[in-house]
């Protein structure tokens, strides 16, 4: 390993990158846009669902119940109805997503401890169903103890607090932002290096490089180093925006966050290099990148809970660096864990990097045949 040659590669990469304005813009643009997009749009919190209300009892108690449900903010009343049947019709027509029906014998049911009200749901949308389940928590929790006493006797905050415990708004943003660091790093880092070697081969630079004393290791390491810095910049962008826009906490050590991110960056860059030594064109490199990217997003636990997946799929997921990173970053940022407490995942990422890098260096031959 000749440090001067290694450094020459690093400087060259940075200079080339500095002249590539679009890529430069993407380095910051991708994290910002993705974060805002995922953070706001892909939000499991359902607020302001259109609701219809059929309060057939119309007593002080029933009105209070309905008000409590509305106070959760999950639904917004847009229609009044006289019977549950009318609500069903409105749901079928798509006018409302949720119907709240309070039967005429509401007060008697309260005394008997029977079902108080019904929440009718547009079941064609599973997320709406989930939201309705939370709405239903309100009457059942508050129904039993107080008989004739008005609803207000139980502090309204208590009922809302049941709902707010499940309020997905905070939960989803907080879960998504740390994961998003991983997803963005997987997308950009793999692609950067996947293209790096193929591009030089396509442009004819490679034939010149392999006729010089430059070694495979110098070339590979030299290509990875500049992008490590770029990956850490991206991590910072997401962290700062995440804290600023979504109040995402970093309960653990910030240094651990960067360390985890660094491990993922190295893993992904090495994987990219391996792809680059295999691909014959930039287009092929791109396809191979997406071949890895999609399972990373779907199987790592970013989108769907890891525990819910079949065993075989879990094994596949264990191979993906993003899976291990998600465990690390959620541990550090959300649970305040130290990296060493999750040493298995740290080890897994390091092993992945080492293996990919070795394969890439071995695969890259200073020959044209």
């Amino acid at each position, binding site marked *: 390993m000749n440090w001067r*040659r290694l450094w020459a590669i690093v400087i*060259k990469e940075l200079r080339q990158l500095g*002249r590539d304005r679009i890529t430069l813009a993407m380095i910051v643009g991708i994290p910002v846009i993705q974060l805002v997009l995922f953070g706001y749009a892909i939000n499991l919190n359902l607020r302001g669902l259109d609701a219809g209300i059929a309060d057939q009892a119309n007593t002080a108690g029933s009105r209070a119940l309905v008000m409590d449900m509305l106070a959760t903010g999950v639904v917004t009343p847009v229609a009044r109805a006289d019977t549950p049947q009318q609500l069903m019709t409105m749901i079928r027509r798509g006018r409302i997503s949720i119907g709240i029906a309070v039967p005429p014998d509401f007060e008697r049911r309260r005394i008997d401890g029977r079902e108080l009200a019904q929440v009718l749901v547009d079941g064609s949308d599973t997320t709406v169903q989930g939201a309705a389940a939370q709405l239903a928590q309100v009457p059942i929790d508050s129904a039993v103890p107080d008989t004739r006493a008005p609803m207000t006797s139980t502090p309204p905050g208590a009922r809302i607090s049941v709902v707010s415990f499940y309020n997905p708004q905070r939960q989803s943003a907080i879960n998504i932002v740390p994961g998003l660091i991983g997803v963005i790093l997987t997308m950009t880092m793999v692609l950067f290096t996947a293209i790096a070697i193929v591009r030089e081969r396509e442009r*004819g630079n490679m*034939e010149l490089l392999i006729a010089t*004393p*430059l070694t495979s290791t110098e070339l590979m390491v030299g290509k990875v180093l500049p992008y490590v810095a770029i990956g850490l910049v991206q991590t910072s962008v997401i962290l700062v925006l995440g804290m600023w826009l979504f109040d995402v906490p970093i309960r653990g050590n910030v240094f651990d966050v960067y360390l985890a991110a660094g491990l993922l960056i190295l893993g992904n860059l090495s994987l990219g290099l391996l792809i680059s030594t295999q691909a014959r064109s930039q287009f092929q490199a791109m396809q191979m990148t997406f071949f890895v990217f999609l399972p990373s997003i779907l199987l790592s636990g970013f989108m769907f809970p890891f525990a819910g997946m079949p065993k075989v799929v879990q094994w596949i997921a264990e191979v993906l660096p993003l899976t291990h990173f998600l465990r690390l970053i959620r541990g550090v940022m959300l649970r305040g864990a130290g990296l060493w407490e999750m040493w298995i995942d740290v080890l897994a990422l390091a092993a992945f990097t080492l293996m990919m890098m070795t394969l890439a260096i071995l695969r890259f031959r200073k020959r*044209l045949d």
Partner: protein
Amino acid sequence: MTAQPHTGGTTDGDGVAIRASGLTKRFGKLAAVDHVDLEVPARHVYGFLGPNGSGKSTTIRMLCGLLTPTEGEIEVLGLRIPAQADELRSHIGYMTQKFSLFEDLTVRENLEFLAAIQGVPKAKTKSRIDELVEQYHFGDLQKQLAGTMSGGQKQRLGLACAVIHEPELLFLDEPTSAVDPESRRDFWEKLFELADVGTTLLVSTHLMDEAERCHRLAILDRGTLVADGTPDELMAKLKGRTFLVETADPRRAQHVLVDVPGVLGVAQVGNTLRVLTADDGGEATQRMDKALADAGQKGEVMPAPPNLEDVFVAATRNGDAKDDRREHAA
């Protein structure tokens, strides 16, 4: 840099820089290079002449260790290739056929990069680059991106980068294929300057005028070496076999002459035809006269001194003039 003095970086006692025997490269069934024997003397400009696809690039790539030969022995600067290719790399410069420098780096950045990669001592780097900038007329272009330069400027930069570490041996693969005549002349000046200071140059080309400038040349055709020697030697062998035919209707006369037995090639040059015949002691002349007369063509057949194009045609076409016209036109 790292080579021991007795193994690397020296031509042998008899002054041979490159020696190859039985050099063969097959890609599948196709033999791109077929049992080529070569001996390139040191401090010479050695030319590889041949049409596209004749195996010039493949041979060069094998000689500098980028391709593994299917068969044959190679010794370059006293090193066995491909076994000792890594050692060879710091002693050679290689200029690829396609511009292979970084188009998104400036002239100076490219030079700096190559200096570091080729191990030019750090203390000498700046003065060496300044020297090259001066020699290759990059004074005003230092900060220009390589990709925005003209073909001739790119070639110059390619050469400057290839010689930055002052290699003993320089491989140039069709270096002037995309360059105007004036730039080509300048470029060749540079090549001779390099040969003067002791560099061995191996240059491939498909241009006759370039081949003519070489100290020695090898003519390659479909992967085989069909002739080699100095241009004068090669041309001397064709004495008495080349003629000019003056005629009123050169196109028709060409058709007539092509079919005459013993005629190897007929090329139209302006209003005259240039004819190359087989080595048959002048019999072809009489046959040509007769054929022209039979076809009712008035024409005068005069002997002419051979040129390198004739050498090339004679070496690559044995007896069949017809399929040669295409080649000539190119």
